[in-house]
């Protein structure tokens, strides 16, 4: 079982991304949960969302407190929320930043842990023309999960989740953003 914690701000779509991940994993015949941490759903306010993914049934119905993977959707949160909370040195961090993993490690004094970075803000601004970093971060996460869920299943789920709500152009931009982040995410 892999436990994932998302750090984002209200309105950035992290809850939606977490739901899409769970849907894609379940559609592939595996098990997943997506659980938003409700209560602070104000636009711009820091929020957390959680995922569990597993090959076996998941019976846990509590918050994720020791995540294996932490995703930071909004780089301004690096200074304001304890994003390392509950992680051990084996944890994986996926951070939206224009910096390299080494630069992030030095700047925040992170010991151990595996750091991935992706410039999701740049991808979002170029493809979506808006700072919606959820889909690019999902693309990076799918890459890091290394085959646990197929990017094509995620793509189909994005089409299902957004299909009726946004224009075809916007949908295609999201799919491009997903694949770009999948390709552009870097590790140390």
């Amino acid at each position: 079982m892999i436990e994932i914690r998302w750090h984002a701000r209200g309105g950035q779509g992290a809850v939606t991304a977490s739901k899409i991940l769970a849907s894609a994993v379940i559609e592939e015949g595996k098990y997943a949960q997506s659980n938003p941490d409700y209560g602070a759903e104000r636009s711009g306010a820091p929020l957390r969302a959680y995922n569990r993914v597993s090959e076996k049934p998941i019976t846990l119905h509590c918050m994720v407190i020791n995540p294996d993977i932490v995703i930071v959707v909004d780089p301004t949160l690096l200074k304001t929320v304890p994003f390392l909370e509950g992680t051990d040195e084996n944890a994986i961090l996926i951070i939206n930043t224009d910096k390299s993993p080494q630069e992030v490690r030095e700047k925040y004094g992170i010991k151990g842990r595996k750091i991935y970075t992706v410039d999701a803000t740049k991808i979002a601004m170029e493809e979506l023309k808006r700072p919606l970093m959820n889909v690019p971060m999902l693309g990076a996460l799918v890459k890091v999960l290394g085959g646990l869920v197929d990017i094509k299943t995620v793509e189909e789920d994005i089409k299902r989740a957004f299909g009726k709500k946004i224009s075809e152009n916007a949908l295609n931009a999201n799919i491009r953003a997903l694949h770009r982040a999948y390709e552009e995410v870097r590790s140390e």
Partner: protein
Amino acid sequence: MRPELIKEVKYVPYSGNMAAAEAMRQINPDVVAAYPITPQTELMQFFADFVANGLVDTEYIPVESEHSAMSACVGAAAAGSRAMTATAGPGLAYMWEVLGIASGMRLPIVMTVVNRALSAPINIHGDQSDMMGARDQGWIQIFSENAEEQYDNLIQAIKIAEDERTRLPVMVGMDGFVISHAIERVRLLPDRAVEEFIGELKPMYPLLDVDNPVTHGPVAMTDSYMEFKRQQREAMMNAYKVIREVGEAFEEAFGRKYEHIETYKTDDADYILIIIGSTAGTAKYVIDKVREEKGIKVGLIKIRTYRPFPYYDVMDAIEASNCKAVGVFDRAETFGAVGGPLYSDIATAMYLRNKHYPIVSFIYGLGGRDTNVHHIEEAIDKVMQAAAGKEVPFINYLNLNE
């Protein structure tokens, strides 16, 4: 004819609210009357979508309060239709007066309760105080651990409520947010299979049968009120049998077993935890963990049917194990009494068998307070201390800041 959407069994990523709405679509009730309240609101939104899109034949009545929602269901069910609703927390509290009318008139209404804390202070999160507060209003009470159970239980609840031996309303609870709003894998059954399983409602003494006029909800003073109540007890005793039969029929049709309780690794257990709802799932994980890491043999009894209370099932499971002490988890308070409501029921169960096991009471999860692996490990530790004859407080709060 409404369209058939699901033709074969499929597994979907659904929240508890989506699962409950899907069950309602397949049940296709004649009347649904509801008032929105968090965390039930989106359940009714999903169902209202089904109504608007012509996927059900339901007369959907958006009313102005929960008191009215249940009143409309009472009228609809008395007229001879299949009526359903859903509510949560304070909504159930506001319905309280009419809950007793529904059960007293022996109307087979089925309702989802998304279990939520009661005010004050105001809190929208998971907590079972709402259903525990409605415990003595004559409804059959079933609790689900997860979204799939909510779906399965709602389907079974129709058959349980409408059985001629019971004719009692049923409320089916799931924990707010952690189940109602979380996405999980849920198995959906084919539309036609659900229809066939629940069958057609056979109205009993319907108001609309003008050739055979009857009175519903009359005055019953000192000469007859008590006899009505005595019959309700009889119906509730029958429900104990009917719930089991419906569970067996469900297993036969769809392969998933439902009993009054679910036992998890109790056979060789030295210590047993008794839990209602979603935290029972977390406890299963912890039980596997402590068995593997420390060799401590812990088991779980999950209460599915809360009213009628399965005293014998609980005691059979305890007595068949090596149980030395039990931990009883209550997600509701009973101020001024020992333990919570479940504690009293377990103590009664032991008394009925003339058995005495040390019981440690845990109050947990009030207002959505997280109960995670560490808290359940802490509880197991206290149960072990009680088994070893050490003094343990009567009431223990999990994850409380003090």
